[in-house]
């Protein structure tokens, strides 16, 4: 239990926000701390990135080794999209020099949550140099007019 003497409301607030940040960091790490592969589903999880601009959300996904005509992007809920692509050939742990796990992978697969409301039906997709780029138009539900 903390025995630190609190001097002011600002110190209490600082401490509260510090704790909140620590908790958020732990929570974030707990989400990240899992393998980037799934032997049961024979999938590997690709790296991805999200950028929010004033009118769009741009999701990029690194899909090395994938066949362009097998790339699929589909909304699975109002704020989540699922991305998958078949790999050019099956990849196994052996290919990475790993012998203590067994498994083969034939797909890259991930789900990504979109942080702001978007029109899932207005999705533009392009694929270049193994990078998938998904453009989603933002929904501005609460616009405040300035009088």
């Amino acid at each position, binding site marked *: 239990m903390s025995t630190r003497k609190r001097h002011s409301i600002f110190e209490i607030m600082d401490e509260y926000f510090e704790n909140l940040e620590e908790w958020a960091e732990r929570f974030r790490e707990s989400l990240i701390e899992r393998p980037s592969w799934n032997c049961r589903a024979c999938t*590997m999880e*690709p*790296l991805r990135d999200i950028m929010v601009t004033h009118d769009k959300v741009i999701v990029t996904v690194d899909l*090395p*080794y994938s066949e362009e005509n097998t790339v699929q992007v589909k909304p699975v809920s109002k704020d989540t999209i699922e991305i998958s692509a078949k790999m050019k050939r099956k*990849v196994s742990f052996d290919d*990475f020099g790993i012998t203590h796990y067994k498994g083969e992978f034939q797909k890259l697969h991930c789900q990504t949550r979109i942080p702001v409301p978007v029109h899932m039906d207005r999705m533009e997709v392009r694929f270049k140099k193994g*990078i998938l*780029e998904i453009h989603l138009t933002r929904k501005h539900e609460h616009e405040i007019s300035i009088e």
Partner: protein
Amino acid sequence: MDGDIKIVERKKAPEGAVMLFGFPDVGLVGVIAASHIISELKNLDEVAYMDSKLLPPLIVLHEGLPHSPIRIFGNHEILLAVSETALPEDVIYPVMHALIDWGKKKNVKMMISLSGIPVQDRQDLEELKAFAAASSPETLKLVQERGIEILKEGYMVGPQAVMLQYCATLGVPALTLLVQCFFNYPDPEAAAKILEQLANVVGIKVDVSKLLEKGEEIRLKGRDIMKRTQQELTKMKKTQEYDIPLYVS
């Protein structure tokens, strides 16, 4: 804190070599380039490794034997320091200072950090541009003469920033080579480009054809270390490199 780090020598390190640094950073440019140098130049041996309680409790197993994640390889003309794990943000200073102090004792003639400079829409770039920053006007002149653009103004964050500053203090010629790359994705093309520039600056030639051939495989293999590196880049506020500085001259 630097005293908590030991560089353990396994073999006699050469004197007067060029010392290269390949550490996990944006696009893993330095690590991919370093790894390719090791596989292409067959005469590079492990000459030393880092031992420190400041590092995460982690070893790298190769053929069932333990290795430090930070090792130095060398031949008669180069020393190459490489890390196989993302460096925690809070150990970058002591790790870099220890490596540079060690290199100075070996009378290295120049230290060169291999890294990347992230750009948006990287996938649309056909030709990647190289930039450089140096520890002294003389070293800067050397790269300018080789046709490399100088990174004139801005912020630099990470091991290469610490290296340039510390080498400037010690009076050791040092250079950071940077090539346009992805921020969050392993970028073997950028690594190939930086090796071309390395040959241009100091004449260390490495064939990059296999690196380009194996590009997709490297991107697939590099996902995990890239993810760990991203976490550390966030902690060290790497995006500050995008900031526009307010200079006080």
